[in-house]
């Protein structure tokens, strides 16, 4: 994260910042949209209440203050200097409308997923919104604030259900309360956004670049070529790990480090009778060479989480006493024997596990191979089943796997994360765990507003997850993003979604004067 050096070039000018992305925008409705390009572009128009810092703590964005009035009531105080690009004021009504509409229409985006304990929102003043909860939930205020965009009530309400509104600008264009406004779309090629002159969140109150163009390059290789040739100034997608060094040494290209906020993990499906045995899960956990995976596949651009769901980035929660499963195939073998299996003449135990992963996820595709090979050393057969993303999602949803391998991009709040991952019925409880002790701890943490107590509870829960191998967290990837050295002034935020293409960063970036 570089601070603008006060150079003359940081003044608002007529520069165009061209950003490359690999996919098209699927949906312009931020409450529905799900792909990265959707996030990047809609984030420049529909502000979030909160942002996030490198250590995972929430920061003000549209909201200046937030918290709880009581156990089942939360509140946000929002800025009073924001307005929509069509001149309408952005006020608490827009915020309350957005939340209530999402709760009502259940659009398919991530936002709705955060509203489990949400009942309703109300604008109690122009700048204050209060939300009513169905039961105490100590993280919901921050989660809604962080995940939810705010959309203009006067545009979205007349369109009916927010779950079906395309917001494709077909009816008089878009309306933005961010630094840029989408003005022109050529599907498959580019998305052009013009500066909104009044954006109080950027230093000086006006975005520097006059125009931001998102260009679509389906192939990463072409994308990198375009950066090298100067056709684009920034590649929004995180670089493939193997390319980072290469590009770092290329003239005219800078690399920005972006803190990872998520993790990659393997989950063992406990509905499988073999995997229901803790020794088997442990055997598997000890049969993977995590260090090699981080060194080779990720080229060292990843940190160990100590095999704990509490990643080091969440420094308040991180527990150093939990350490990574040691790669020890002999240990694995004895664990398997403890579980009652005997290896055959060929040294293999009579079990076979099917590991699924998405072929579109190239990093996972690579380490899945390594996992398979090291497990074989421990006498455990892993069959790889890499599939196209949709099939993978469908299989995941149906629990049609023995081992699930995947990534979670942002796990910003441990309580929410544990709730979804380890409580029975949780949306990402891929292991199908239902451990009373763990359940109790999570429930308790969820209702605890005292920070220290909460941390203590979560650490206890994490210890159980680690001990029982309910989840096998392998690493947090630190991302690298490449941009042209003709530009400077980006503000890095954690995760690929925010990275240096978050609204403040894009609005602050300025062309370097020769």
């Amino acid at each position, binding site marked *: 994260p570089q601070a603008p050096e006060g150079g003359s070039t940081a003044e608002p000018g007529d520069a165009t910042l061209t950003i490359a992305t690999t996919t098209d925008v699927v949906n312009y409705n931020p409450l529905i949209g799900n792909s990265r390009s959707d996030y990047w572009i809609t984030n420049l128009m529909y502000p979030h209440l909160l942002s996030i810092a490198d250590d995972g703590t929430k920061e003000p964005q549209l909201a200046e203050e937030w918290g709880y009035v009581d156990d089942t009531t939360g509140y946000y105080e929002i800025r009073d200097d924001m307005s929509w690009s069509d001149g309408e004021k952005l006020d608490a009504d827009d915020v309350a409308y957005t939340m209530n509409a999402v709760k009502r229409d259940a659009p398919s985006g991530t936002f709705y997923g955060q509203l489990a304990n949400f009942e309703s929102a109300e604008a109690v003043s122009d700048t204050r919104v209060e939300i009513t909860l169905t039961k105490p939930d100590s993280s919901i205020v921050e989660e809604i604030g962080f995940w939810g965009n705010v959309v203009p009530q006067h545009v979205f309400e007349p369109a009916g259900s927010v779950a079906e509104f395309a917001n494709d600008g077909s009816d008089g264009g878009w309306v933005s309360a961010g630094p840029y406004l989408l003005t022109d779309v*050529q599907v*498959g090629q580019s998305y052009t956004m013009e500066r909104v002159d009044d954006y109080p969140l950027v230093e000086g109150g006006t975005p520097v670049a006059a125009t931001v163009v998102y260009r679509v390059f389906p192939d990463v290789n072409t994308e990198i070529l375009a950066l090298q040739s100067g056709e684009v100034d920034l590649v929004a997608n995180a670089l493939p790990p193997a390319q980072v060094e290469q590009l770092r040494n290329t003239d005219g290209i800078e690399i920005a480090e972006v803190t990872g906020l998520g993790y990659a993990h393997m989950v063992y499906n406990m509905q499988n009778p073999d995997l229901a045995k803790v020794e088997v899960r442990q055997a598997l956990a000890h049969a993977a060479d995590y260090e090699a995976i981080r060194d080779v596949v990720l080229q060292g651009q990843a940190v160990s989480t100590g095999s704990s769901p509490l990643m080091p980035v969440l420094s308040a929660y991180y527990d150093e006493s939990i350490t990574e499963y040691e790669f020890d195939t002999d240990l694995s073998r004895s664990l398997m024997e403890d579980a009652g299996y005997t290896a055959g003449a060929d040294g293999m135990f009579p079990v076979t596990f099917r590991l699924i992963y998405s072929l579109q996820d190239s990093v996972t595709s690579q380490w899945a191979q390594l996992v398979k090979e090291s497990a074989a050393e421990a006498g455990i057969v892993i069959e790889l089943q890499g599939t196209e993303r949709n099939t993978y999602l469908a299989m995941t949803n149906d629990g049609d796997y023995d081992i699930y391998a995947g990534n979670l991009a942002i796990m910003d709040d441990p309580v929410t994360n544990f709730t979804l991952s380890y409580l029975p019925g949780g949306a990402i409880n891929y292991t199908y765990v239902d451990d009373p002790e763990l359940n109790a701890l999570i429930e308790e943490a969820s209702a605890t507003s005292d920070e220290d107590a909460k941390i203590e509870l979560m650490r206890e829960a994490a210890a159980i997850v680690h001990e029982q191998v309910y989840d096998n967290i392998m690493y947090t990837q630190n991302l690298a993003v490449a941009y042209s050295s003709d530009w400077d002034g980006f503000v890095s935020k954690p995760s690929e979604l925010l990275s240096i293409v978050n609204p403040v960063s894009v609005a602050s970036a300025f062309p370097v004067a020769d």
Partner: protein
Amino acid sequence: MSIALFVLRRFGRGILTIWFAVTVTFLLLRLLPGDPALAVASPNMTDETRAALLEQYGLDQPLLTQYMLYLGRLLQGDLGTSFTQSIPVLDVLLQRLPWTLLLTATALVLTVVVGIPLGVLAASHKGGILDRVVQVVGVTGQSLFVPSVGIVLLLVFGLNLGWFPIGGAYTDGVYGTEWYVSVLTHLVLPAVSLTLIQLGSYVLTMRATLIDALGDDYVTLAKANGLSPRRILWKHALRNALLPATTLIGLQLGFLVGGAVLTETVFAYPGIGRGIYEAVTQLDFPVLQGAFLLLAVTVVAANTLTDIAYGFLDPRVKTS
């Protein structure tokens, strides 16, 4: 009466082809595994959300009902609404179609313009060095793996020489003549690589039909009548050999429009092939159905046109 009748029959056959394509797509999408709701929603959605989405998409109804509804709407010109983008399918497709047509038509014209002389060259030097060179060059182009060629072209002509832009269909933010120029420069590399891969089959066809034609009796007659070899080649033999080549154009257009996925991917060209690929990854049934319909229509139109052109070019068909 007869030409009208012929056109009518051709038309009927076209409709049949389109119906076939539409039905195959419809059934494939629904009978093969894959759940559009999952592709659309974030992974942590609830089962209710999923059910609601399926209902919204009309996928909860029996197959036959869905099919009848779909055909019914189709007949009214309604292609449906995209699952993921919530906008009319036609809009989704029309955004990409013009570029695809531009790219493929350019490639086709290039192919014909380069392919005919090459074919003639090979045929008239049959068995000679020139023939061999043309064959090998043509077939080599056809055997190349598109993405590899694309990257090399981009690296050499885009990055190193800087003659052509790296991706996209035009330069943003320029207008007037400059815009047209930018469309042209963006077109060159993808069109060349498409031409390269289809040139082979065109040249080979030209060569084979021309060699056949050169062995025909009317060529001997022309020789016996003292016509010059050049005249015999270009007037007598080529005229006959062009007929099969016409049909090939129709075939290739159809192939090109849908088959340019890889080219479009590498050159970041906003065509329909890439659109289909993306719709597949999003399981956007209506867009896929619409796209296949569109492709079928293109193929049918191209084939019908070449057939009719054939009818007009070949007096045996025209005058009987």
